[in-house]
């Protein structure tokens, strides 16, 4: 996978799925959903996100529901989520949506909001472009990277002919 080079948004601990994908998103048109991400905890944030941005969260990122919360962040333009620790369900949902999600202990200290970081997946290193500080990370297992590179599990199922006509 190619390097990701993006602007950072900082979030704290226990950022939950209902903040990322509030209840009202369920019945909104697909293109409107992303603009409601984090509106309860950080009103106006979604409107400031640019395609290619990165989120750095604290502990227990993505705790909560099975709703397509990671997908919503991806559709908003977020290209990678990194956190001190990530809820297991959220991590799977991110990978299955084609959004890389990395658990990196110590990541919170590496960047301020607005910094640009470079994520090098080949060498498993993140570098802050401003401070030049670097941190190594444990790569995701190869078969998860493969799901991400294929754009998520639905694409894979489609390509295998396993999905049928609409209900």
């Amino acid at each position, binding site marked *: 996978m190619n390097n990701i080079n993006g602007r950072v948004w900082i979030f704290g601990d226990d950022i939950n799925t*209902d903040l990322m994908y509030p*209840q009202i998103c369920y019945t909104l048109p697909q293109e409107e959903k992303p603009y409601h991400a984090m509106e309860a905890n950080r009103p106006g944030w979604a409107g400031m996100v640019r395609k290619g941005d990165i989120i750095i969260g604290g*502990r227990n990122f993505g705790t909560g*529901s099975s709703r397509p919360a990671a997908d919503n962040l991806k559709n908003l333009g977020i290209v990678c989520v990194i956190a001190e620790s990530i809820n297991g369900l959220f991590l799977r*949902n991110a990978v299955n949506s084609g959004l890389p999600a990395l658990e990196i202990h110590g990541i919170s200290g590496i960047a301020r909001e607005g910094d640009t970081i470079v994520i090098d997946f080949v060498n498993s290193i993140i570098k802050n472009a401003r401070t030049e500080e670097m941190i190594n990370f444990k790569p995701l297992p190869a078969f998860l990277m493969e799901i991400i590179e294929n754009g998520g599990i*639905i694409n894979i199922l489609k390509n295998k002919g396993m999905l049928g006509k*609409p209900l």
Partner: protein
Amino acid sequence: MDVVKMNIIENILFNHSVEPVKYVSPGDIVTVNVDRVIMVDMAALHPEFLDNPPVKPFDPEKISLVFDHYVPAPNIEIANRVNRLRKVVDRWGIKDFYDVGRGGISHVLGGEKGWFRPGSLIANTDSHTIATGAFNTLGRGLGTPEVMNIIATGKTWFPVGETLKINLENRIKPHTSAKDVFFYMASKIGDIPNKNIEFSGNGIEYLNIDQRSSISTMCAEVSAEFAVFPEDKILKQYMNERGYMDYHAAVPDTNAEYIDEMSIDMGKIEPMVAMPDRIIGNIKPISEIGRVEIDVAVVGSCANGRLSDIRDVAEVLNGRKISDRTRFVVTPASKAIYEEASRLGYISTIMEANAMVTNPTCGACLGGHMGVVGNGDNVISSTTRNFKGRMGGSGAKIYLASARSVAISALKGHIAGDLNE
């Protein structure tokens, strides 16, 4: 290397491994066969499912479809979408379909219907699937796209996490609930993403299946992967009474490995509350929070809308009226619970107190319907989550507590855990 000793969770993953392996241990990723896949009505609201459903399931007998979150449909959009979802029943030949008026919340219904067999492995589109742990069953909530993959293939993967052994000792005090035990535990362990919990200890025998389910269900809120109880005589009896004899319970190997072990004296726990917006790091004994007035009280959900909870509510309300300032919505978690509560007179006791009893559904728990709260409401609820905006307006303050404490608070009009204080 010595033979690896596996705990309950590792044994279940091992038994379901697709590839023959010698053992599983923390750090491994195991590809597993899934015994049952449960899909709930929320799949109809996923952007992909209705447009691109799997062509056919790996085994229609192993698929359950449960309408629970939006029962009955609260608006036209949802009514139209679940109408489309219903078509999958005939297309796939699903037998275990529970439509409006038939079933209940999947995590409760699955126990009643014998889908959670000790030693088995369950996937469900809903995040509280960890509830199955009360049945000595591994269950994982997964996103709809991943469940679509499992429906097509019958398989998925799990990372093997480290397991924390928690010994629940002694009997809970009379006016305390299993929910309080969970809150106490959560205040001690905090969040544990990627880790498991295995329960043990001499206090388990005093917990019925409802109480165990309340604890296992809530373990989703500490981000545990799995949280499992052992099979014992109470679970055996539960299964036998319902004719579910065909299973192989999972037991830990002698000297099984745990990352850590802790004991909780359930006899020392008092009624607790999770303060608004989060559970982790936000739990207090009710006796320490001062006076908090309550506008809305809710009892329901997969965690605490069970018969034991409805009984607690009826016992508290018995012959009394709730506070004039409070609205109290009670939602039994399944049809069977509703019927039994009705037969035992709980429903009329609750209604006489001016509380409202709704049909079984998730309803207010997810802010879907049947008790959506507004900005400015102070809410006390026996449901699972107090995230900002979870039950409706993001300006509402949601406190979580046991069903008993919610009922006492509804009577008094402010948060209280002791009827006689």
